[in-house]
């Protein structure tokens, strides 16, 4: 029973929305659009569980005085302040809170966001140094094509041989495109098969414990 009901729901909705794709009529499109809106609402409620977990996780650390426990206080306070400012800032008469919310986003969250992104530049270097080694035939191909593309970017490459940028473009257009498409076919079939398995109730991992 506890397994049957969810499986029946999945089967019914799966078939309904598979068929919906082929029906262009007004009612069909309305149902589709309303459902999309409903899905957003449903998944939004799960954030309560998630935040519950976050609070629980850090409360435990504080209570047990785990190493660096005071950092958990930072997380909890930051979360509460930001959430409250964001929600109350929309209420009439409290626009100044909304202003503070935007300032915090602009000068606290956004810079850290960009800084994490920028760290990628360093990691590209260390990853290339470590992994671009001609350990095998395949690794050598990875190395050579990556090298040529990088050479295509710098003026030094064109000075070395004026055809380098063209070769770089060819690599992007021919072998790279071929690999991309080949992988896309496999991914597409795998995705379709998984959707099918979910609808038919074969794929049950989401029920917890492999659905046994």
């Amino acid at each position, binding site marked *: 029973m506890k397994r049957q009901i969810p499986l029946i729901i999945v089967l019914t909705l799966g078939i309904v929305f598979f068929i919906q794709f082929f029906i262009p009529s007004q009612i069909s499109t309305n149902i589709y659009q309303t459902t999309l809106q409903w899905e957003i609402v449903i998944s939004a409620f799960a954030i309560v569980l998630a935040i519950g977990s976050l609070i629980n996780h850090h409360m435990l650390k504080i209570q047990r005085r785990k190493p660096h426990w005071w*950092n958990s206080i930072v997380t909890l306070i930051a979360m509460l302040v930001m959430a409250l400012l964001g929600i109350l800032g929309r209420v009439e008469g409290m626009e100044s809170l909304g202003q503070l919310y935007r300032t915090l986003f602009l000068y606290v969250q956004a810079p850290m966001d960009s800084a994490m992104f920028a760290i990628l530049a360093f990691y590209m270097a260390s990853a290339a140094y470590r992994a671009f080694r001609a350990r095998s035939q395949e690794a050598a191909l990875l190395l050579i094509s990556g090298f040529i593309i990088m050479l295509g970017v710098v003026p030094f490459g064109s000075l070395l041989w004026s055809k380098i940028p063209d070769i770089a473009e060819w690599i992007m257009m021919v072998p790279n495109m*071929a690999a991309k498409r*080949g992988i896309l076919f496999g991914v597409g079939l795998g995705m379709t098969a998984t959707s099918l398995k*979910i609808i038919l109730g074969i794929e049950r991992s989401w029920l917890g414990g492999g659905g046994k």
Partner: protein
Amino acid sequence: MIFSTNPWVWVAAILTLCIFSFLYKENPFYRFAEHLFVGISAGYGVAVYWNNAIVPNLFVPLFQQHNWWFIIPGLLGMMFFFRFNQKTGWLILIPMAVLLGTGSGMSLAPTIQTNILKQMQSALADATNLKLGGWGLIWGIVTLFGVITTLSYFFFSREQKGLLRVSANIGVWFIMIGFGASFGNTVMGRISLLIGRVQFLLTDWIHIIK
């Protein structure tokens, strides 16, 4: 050196440096920034869910437009809360089933369209474009050949022997060349992001660069 007088710029600059300090090693400054980042972005997420999902998609239809159908997603969403009780815990499978059922049903045919039919069409269009002639056509056919060999690498139910082995190996070559190229092609963009940060530090915070 002239420093910015805007305290918020200082906050942003110091936090940026805290994050970068991780490159040396994990340290109290990074730890502080990390916990602040997780907290503030989680709080931001809550506000976004509230302002952009719950209010426009639930409260407005229910309380302003009096569209009582929207009680359904509200109730389904609230079923997540049954999790707090051992006995009723399984009920969260119902909203999950709704999300998964609609999601799978909706994505089935479009995936076939974009990942299979569309890709087949472009692969064939490139390989048979006689108007292109010469090298253009040859590269189109080479691409198609690469697509097929790459795809053959993903045959799982057969041992990689004989022709399949040869083909799968060629496929791996294409994959590796492609990955190397994507890697090399991403470097410039990532450095540009770093340049953006350095420019912020050296222009907005310390006025070194004009």
